[in-house]
């Protein structure tokens, strides 16, 4: 396996860590959701890359095609993308409600409220 052959893993790892860092370090809820999206997308790339067959064509039935890419990861990633969209939608909806209730979506300003014991 050459360096180029495994290069996609480096993309996945870099993207994954960028997203994960964004989720952890950013206080803004929209940025957290964007980080979460990056994080998920990196896993999608990991899946799709696993389905690549060298010199393979698209997995569509037609004449003269013997070698084709594995279509199962594509299908899985399609489903996972739908799940990701749903999560983004729910997360953004919650962010809107938090903005309405608190007037801010910066987590740093809200940190004490949720753990506090008095009303």
């Amino acid at each position, binding site marked *: 396996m050459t360096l180029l052959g495994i290069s996609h893993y480096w993309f996945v790892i870099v993207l994954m860590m960028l997203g*994960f860092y964004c*989720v952890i370090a950013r206080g803004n*809820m929209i940025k*957290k959701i964007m980080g*979460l999206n990056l*994080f*998920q997308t990196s*896993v999608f790339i*990991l*899946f799709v890359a*696993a389905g690549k067959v060298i010199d393979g064509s698209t997995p569509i039935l037609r004449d003269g095609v013997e070698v084709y890419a594995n279509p199962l*990861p594509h299908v*899985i990633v399609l*489903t*996972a993308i739908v*799940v990701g969209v*749903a*999560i983004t939608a*729910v*997360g953004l909806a*919650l*962010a809107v*409600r*938090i903005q309405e*209730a*608190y007037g801010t979506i910066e987590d740093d300003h*809200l940190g004490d*409220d*949720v*753990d506090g*014991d008095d009303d």
Partner: protein
Amino acid sequence: MNMTLIDLLPFIVLTPLIASGIVALLPGRTLPFVVTMLACLASAVIAAFVLPAAIAGPPLAYPFGNWPPPFGIEYRVDAANAFVALLVAGMSAVTLLWAPKSVAVEIHGRHGTFYALFLLAVAGLLGITLTGDTFNLFVFLEISSLASYALIAYGKDRRALLAAFRYLIMGTVGATFLLIGIAFLYMTTGTLNMADLAERLPELRDNNAVRAALAFIIVGMGLKLALLPLHLWLPNAYAYAPNFVTAFLAGTATKVALYVMARFIFTVFDADYSFVVVPLAAVLMVLAVAGMFAGSWVAMFQIHMKRMLAYSSVAQVGYMVLGVALATATGLTAAFLHLFNHALIKTALFMAVGCIMYRTGSAKLHDLRGLGRQMPWSFTAFALAGLSIIGIPTTAGFISKWYLVLASIEVGAWWLVVLILITSLMAVYYIWRVIETAWFEERPAGAVQVREAPLALLIPTWFVVALNFYFGLDTRLTVGASMAAAEALLTGWGGLP
């Protein structure tokens, strides 16, 4: 008979799933509740028929759309998941009995969408439990998680929104970790079917990608399970969710996550791999004991009753994981027993707190001073369910702790017995604080007179409390099913049919 049972099997999941679509459109409040109740009862009844068949015979398999596994998605049910499915479907029906009064004060407007989300959560949890396909498991996990984020956000307190958002972030990271684990398994074995994976993985013992897969899956499910360092979402989510949602989630969500963890450790990866090749037992045991102590310790100082019970849940998860980490038949039996019994205990406790909050609107200890005489039935229910969480003999909580102690002695770990006793004493303290405040302190002067909670709330609460004592005395169902579940996990599925 057996043929028809297998045909009915997928309807455990499909009934709530289809019903949720219908319930979302129904107007008013009574109609959505009735349809929801019927759907949950139907699931529970089918699950009750499936459990004896799964205990008696080989795993029941249902291939979806007649696609033979590993190409199609298959439901594969043995004693372990039939038991958990019965618990989830049964508890959802039992908590629903309690729902109408409680939901009526907490959620405004029509209830169709609320109950639709509840049914989605139930369907998701049941789907996780029954499926034999790892990717299908991920999808159901996200269905149930998304529904529970939304359910938590229904809480009246605005902090429910923050709790739901944080749970969403942590839950999604956990589920994505699970997906990474599944990706590694697929890349190394080329299959997603659990039985097929179990057959192919032994050849790949030295593969680092497989090790990474196990690590990702354990961390991902640890987040959903609220295992100690990953438990941060749980206290706030439980504390600020509507009372009905708290009672339902406390009895089902973490239990299903524990089942998934056990399924991966024992069936997919094989105990020999998880515990001998990878030192997972030691890791899980340390985290479990730390969870038992930290959870109980923090619970002792909470002034919000729902948060106190939530931290107590973190401790109870520790007991269950400890049973899994012992990796013996008795240990697993104890884990499954506690999974079932703790669902009964925590649901009863949260229902009792819900009864108190229905009248007082507060779960703060200092607001409850002297209330024991004004709401005797609610506080007695709390105290009796409290006995069960402490583990007093004749309660369900005693049975599961007894088996956990037996399992610890069996592997020669006497120190674990001591630790279990100490954490039980800590439970005595945090339950006693409530009793002392309610009965032994004077009602502050000028406080409003509070009436007893309505019967519509008290009767289901006392029903679950009674179940705690019933399963503390008659252990045939729980111990029998738990032993069968432990055996099913330890023997595995033996490849594809």
